[in-house]
């Protein structure tokens, strides 16, 4: 079920939660808490999701075909069988790439308009 309101429909900008989850999964499969930790790390602690937001987003992303459950799991001694692991699908990777390009174009515009002067000089 593609969701227009929460930005998981093709062509719509992604919500921060969906974008960060896709980014977290870009370099390999992870379980829910692993995604949460990665999101916190890549956002320098600015994006803190609770379990409700995380699994709500995961549900919508599964329905939109951006991610899928995977059977690739770590060795049993490092694994908890109750966990579910998720990975990006081809569509999810394409959507993430498109979104990254869109944001990158926005950054270029911001640079041209000299909005990032302070950041660049740091």
């Amino acid at each position: 079920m593609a969701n227009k309101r929460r930005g998981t429909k093709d062509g719509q900008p992604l919500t921060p939660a969906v974008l960060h989850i896709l980014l977290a999964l870009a370099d390999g499969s992870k379980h829910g808490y692993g995604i949460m930790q990665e999101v916190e790390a890549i956002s320098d602690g600015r994006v803190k999701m609770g379990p409700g937001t995380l699994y709500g987003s995961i549900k919508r992303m599964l329905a939109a075909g951006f991610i899928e459950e995977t059977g690739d799991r770590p060795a049993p001694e490092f694994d908890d069988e109750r966990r579910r692991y998720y990975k990006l699908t081809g569509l999810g990777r394409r959507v993430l790439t498109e979104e990254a390009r869109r944001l990158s174009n926005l950054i270029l515009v911001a640079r041209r308009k000299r909005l990032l002067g302070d950041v660049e000089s740091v």
Partner: protein
Amino acid sequence: MSGYRSHPVPGVVFKLYQGLLCVYPVEHRREYGPLMVQTFRDMCQETYRHKGTLGLILLSVHVFVDTVISSIAEHLDRLEYGARKMTKKQHFVILVFAGFPLVLGLVLFAVNPQYMGRMFMPGYANAQPLGGMMTAAVVVMAVVAYVIQRWSLMLSDRLVEEGNRGKAVIPRIWFVTSFILFIIPAMLLVVFGPAMLRLIEAGVIG
């Protein structure tokens, strides 16, 4: 690391969170509830280890707010899903139900313009605002009835789809109740409103 931080997080915290999950729709809870509890457990243990009791309290507040907001989002999604599944026939039926008092007013106006016209005719200083108020009340009642009926129909279909036929009775009761509470009074107001205005003008009422 201080001593108390090496103790496990009190189990009551998880029990409370487990109880809080009842705010989510049943199927979401069934599918993701255990995963959410496990993730919460991981978060708590990590936070308790590094930030102690205060960290745990702050985390609990954050998770509580997140749960409330995300549960509203899940319920809205559920309703949106119901709206998408709603057939044209169902839409038509509730529109006819809710719009009936307004249609009735128009029919009465066509049959006897003088009778209904009293609600809006200039020159009746006392009647004019009352007529406007009555018309506004009828429109509001029709809209409220439409919203309740649409919502109850979607919810009842969804519950049947989920296999909760027993629970689907409750929204159906709302459906009937909205008819009794809003549509019937609106119809009575349309039919008897102008007569009431005449009685008010004549000084029989008020």
